């Protein structure tokens, strides 16, 4: 381990903090393909992972990267990849595989402007829906959205913990600003970080069911090569892991996949309320747009307006209940995001018309300015 890694107070970019957080979480397998603005994550890990005895491998594309981390996770390693929009698109089929076969892994998407090659060096938050629905079919997903370098570290750790606890792929959505901004961070010591590992089976090999319909919805998981020889497939399967076309088994599987996330949504979903105690104007935002939103709230408060910010840390499952809780007091909502309204659409759905929703949408490669949001607040009067 290098000296730099042992210093607790450091100046890091979001991408560097993500790599450090992953190492602190016990990630020991990284596979990826270079893409702006995420490549620094791979570069840090190419240097650090072999020092930890872990594996870094640059694959031939993002499809291969996603396949490799699933294989490594099944072999017992905490594994991750990092990419940006175009690469995230290529990963989608195997993200669906990880959801279906319940393989813990973390996928980092440092968002840039799209669609297509789009804006490689400029920020965006346009992958909200790709994170939710990028792969085909009904599937649950967890997506986390930090807003600072320090929080990128802590939510990267949390992404691994949730992946292990719920046997699921977890997506960490950063954006170009967060990936490249430098901030002072005080990193926790190794012993201060709570780590979660996949639950091992109590059953002996002959009774082990890798996809058992447990009460928690999460089946215990054992790595390949540990004496439990079992089958993993992306086909619809029964509790034993083997393919089935029986309607009752298929329904049970898909219901359990959703149940394991839905019944634990209160544990998974996190928001931060900022100046929301008496707020009548509520902002909803996430990632680097939430930084501008927070600044706008401060400026509005100085001008005597009761504004607050509900900052989303868990984007999926969506924090609908947390937003609904303010439904009677907050008179007006403003959703600030760097896309054409993907988050606002979801907020509208959550609030079912109980309050008007106003949009601040920037999708031209510029970051959102606090003054743009403040102007929108002032226009509400």
């Amino acid at each position, binding site marked *: 381990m290098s000296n730099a890694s042992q210093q607790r107070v450091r100046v890091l970019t979001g991408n560097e903090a993500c790599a450090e957080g992953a190492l602190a979480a016990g990630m*020991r*397998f990284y*596979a990826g393909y270079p893409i702006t603005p995420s490549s620094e994550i791979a570069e840090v890990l190419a240097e650090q992972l*072999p*020092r930890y*005895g872990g*594996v870094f*491998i640059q*694959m*031939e*594309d993002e*499809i*291969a*990267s*996603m*396949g*490799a*981390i*699933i*294989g*490594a*996770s*099944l*072999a*017992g*390693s905490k*594994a991750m990849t990092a990419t940006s929009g175009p690469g995230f698109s290529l990963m989608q*089929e*195997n993200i669906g*595989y990880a959801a279906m076969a319940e393989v813990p892994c973390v996928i980092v998407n440092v968002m840039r402007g799209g669609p297509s090659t789009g804006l490689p060096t400029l920020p965006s938050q346009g992958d909200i829906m790709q994170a939710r629905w990028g792969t085909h079919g009904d599937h649950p997903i967890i997506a986390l959205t930090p807003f600072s370098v320090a929080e990128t570290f802590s939510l990267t750790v949390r992404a691994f913990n949730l992946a292990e606890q719920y046997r699921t792929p977890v997506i960490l959505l950063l954006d170009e600003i967060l990936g490249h901004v430098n901030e002072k961070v005080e990193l926790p010591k190794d012993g201060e970080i709570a780590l979660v590992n996949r639950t091992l089976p109590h059953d002996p090999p002959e009774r082990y069911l890798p996809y058992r319909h447990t009460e928690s919805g999460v089946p215990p998981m054992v*790595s*390949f*090569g*540990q*004496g439990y*020889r*079992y*089958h*993993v*497939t*992306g*086909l619809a399967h029964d509790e034993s892991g*083997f*393919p089935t076309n029986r309607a009752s088994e298929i329904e049970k599987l898909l219901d359990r996949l959703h149940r394991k996330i839905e019944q634990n949504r209160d544990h998974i979903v996190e928001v931060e309320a900022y100046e929301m105690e008496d707020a009548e104007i509520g902002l909803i935002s996430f990632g680097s747009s939430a930084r501008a939103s927070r600044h706008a709230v401060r400026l509005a408060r100085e001008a005597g307006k009761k504004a607050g910010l509900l900052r989303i840390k868990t984007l999926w499952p969506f924090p609908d209940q947390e937003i609904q809780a303010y439904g009677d007091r907050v008179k007006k909502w403003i959703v600030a995001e760097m896309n054409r309204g993907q988050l606002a659409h979801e907020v509208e759905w959550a609030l079912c018309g109980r309050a008007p929703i106003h949009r601040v949408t920037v999708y031209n490669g510029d970051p959102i300015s606090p003054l743009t949001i403040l102007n929108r607040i002032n226009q509400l009067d």
Partner: protein
Amino acid sequence: MFNYDQYLRLDKFPLIWCSGCGDGIVLKSLLRAVHKLGLQKDQICMVSGIGCSSRLPGYVDFNTLHTTHGRALTFATGIKMARPELTVLVITGDGDATAIGGNHYIHAARRNIDLTVLLFNNHIYGMTGGQVSPTTAKGKKASTAPYGSFENTFNISGLAQAAGASFVARSGVYNPVQLENYIVKAIQKKGFSLVEIMSPCPTAYGRRNREGTPVDMIAWQKENSVPVAKAGQLTPEELEGKLITGILVDIERSECRAEYQKLIDRLAQS
């Protein structure tokens, strides 16, 4: 009589394969090879993609992983890099490995990562009903080449050789003893090892191309195979339409995971 049952998940039988399919002969050759090498079942991880041959892992009592179409080698690379002590066998087909998975195929060979690939070449997409594949010979019919294929074909073994594989052999189901021996050598080889196996598909390929019975198709293989030693004495014209069989590549070349381990060890000392 060899006891195949010790390696099989008999409760998953009957096999999905059509009667007359060559894949069962490969399965038996593979199990004899595993036995000959004395490999423990827990130590074997078998990874496959999508297609008829890729259903094989479901029938064998190893750690088995049935992945997405064309991507078996990527999953296998992750497993081998994470747990090099496992013996990783990859089951794939001509479409799976060289059409949708072509990029992974050449890169796994380039890395010379210690995987053993059994590539079942039936010259067709059997599972989806007989569509044209990168190895369907020019003029041969498929459901998506109803007038005969107009494309050139891949030389699958040549591709692996050019990309850097350290072991390449070609055989067919007409010669299961040879096949077994090649699989043994492929697993023993430290590096990317390919055994390209000619496995006839009477249902989706043979019927459409009037190749006769399954026995006729296997007999055709036998009559048209030329051992690699003999092939060197023949002209390109004489080799037209022939299958060159034998061990095509057997070289020593640095292996990916072993090289990575050297890096880990070097950094640990510094």
